[in-house]
């Protein structure tokens, strides 16, 4: 099964837009394999990215172990898509 970021999806595109905007990174430089460390994403950028995700998708993500282990844009996207999907399942229940 492809990872979330490999699925052509509007959500993934939106997340990439958010990452680029909130971390003030050139959108065209973002690929799934881009290392977050190379984007120079700092803790303050994460706070902004996660705030924007909450505003757009209503999903609260704290700075947890999984997030701090994300190395690439793909890792970050997979985590965020997974949490959005999980929270919408929760909402349905």
């Amino acid at each position, binding site marked *: 099964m492809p990872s979330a970021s490999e699925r052509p999806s509007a959500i993934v595109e939106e997340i990439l837009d958010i990452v680029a905007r909130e971390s003030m990174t050139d959108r065209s430089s973002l690929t799934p394999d881009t290392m977050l460390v190379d984007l120079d994403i700092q803790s303050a950028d*994460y706070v902004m990215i996660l705030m924007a995700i909450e505003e757009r998708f209503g999903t609260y993500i*704290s*700075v947890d*172990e999984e997030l*701090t282990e994300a190395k690439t844009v793909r890792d970050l996207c997979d985590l965020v898509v997974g949490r959005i999907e999980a929270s919408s399942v929760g909402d349905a229940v």
Partner: protein
Amino acid sequence: MKPVYVTGVGAVSACGIGAEALWAAARDGISAVRPIVFPDIARQQVHAAAALAEADLEEVWKAGDPRTQDRVSALALAAAREAVAQAGLTPGDLGHRCCVIVGSGFGGAQTIDRNSRTFWQQPATRLDPFSVPKIMPNAPASWISMEFGANGPAFCVSSACSSASQAIGFGLQMLRAGTADVAIVGGVEALLVPSGFRAWEILRVMSPTLCRPFSQGRDGMVLGDGAGILVLETEDRARARGTTPLARLAGFATNSDARDLLRPDAAMAACCMREAIADAGLSEADIGYVNAHGTGTVANDANEGEALRSVFGDECRKLAISSTKPVHGHTLGAAGAIEAIVALGALRDGIAPPTLNFAAADPKIGIEPLHGTARRFSGAACLSNSFAFGGINACLVFSRGD
């Protein structure tokens, strides 16, 4: 160095009114974290906090004055009354030789919250005329000094989560220096108000699940309200009164990472612990219990684990280390005092309290805290850690009074 003793303690927390209620909950691993609802937060994401029980808050207000005091001052006064009574002091005993140092991270948060809402939503409505004296962070120290006639230096230390540990430590230094003979010290926080809670939510450090310090799968902390106050006295003064001290406040150190506002530094945290133990005239082997800062955030616990391994080496496996924050919550500017009182209970009874919600050891932390249930320990001293945003570290060492 002049010995300084703790002769009284007082606490108000989600565990109840009184230092014994706090210690009993920590020792028995009974969490006071409960559901919390803020109807004014449009989309509340975190739904638990260690708020005071309604009945306890009502009890606190019976001796308070809501016209002139924010909740933060009412909580501090309630804790101070207990501590001063336990010490057996009366206003006539204090005067110019008594200082008051009370830490707080946010001061009168409820007044700020209510005022801002009125100001923006109902501009024509009168604001609270007592806003300024309710909000100012030194209000709790000033109210305590007024109630007990303490004419020595009175001030607030505001250094986020290290506020109370610094306040207690600076009290120790003032007594050693001869500036005062008695110090009423500690910390208070009353930030469980809609805008304050939301501000912590959006920093992404609050757990949406459970606060599980030092555990694999940890995802944040849980906030709490509370106040902790200690009465410190010089040896001469305590002896002259014939008081039996609860313990000795033996050592204190504080330093600054001078690196990053939010990301902690293990080397400076370790340095702070070592200096506090050395200030107490003790060695690492004398420490029997560590009340860790242990917030349950990814960053603090990995950092503190590394610092503890650096200070205690292989002894970390045998040493009783726990975080009691899942019981009383992270009380921010009060944390150092609330946890000092837990450490004093541990020292008195020789019992180390457990860390709740621990699931599994995290290899990246490298230490396994005491979890499950309390256990006996035999060491002669306890260490209490506070590590704050802003890179401010503060550590206290308590030893037996005899």
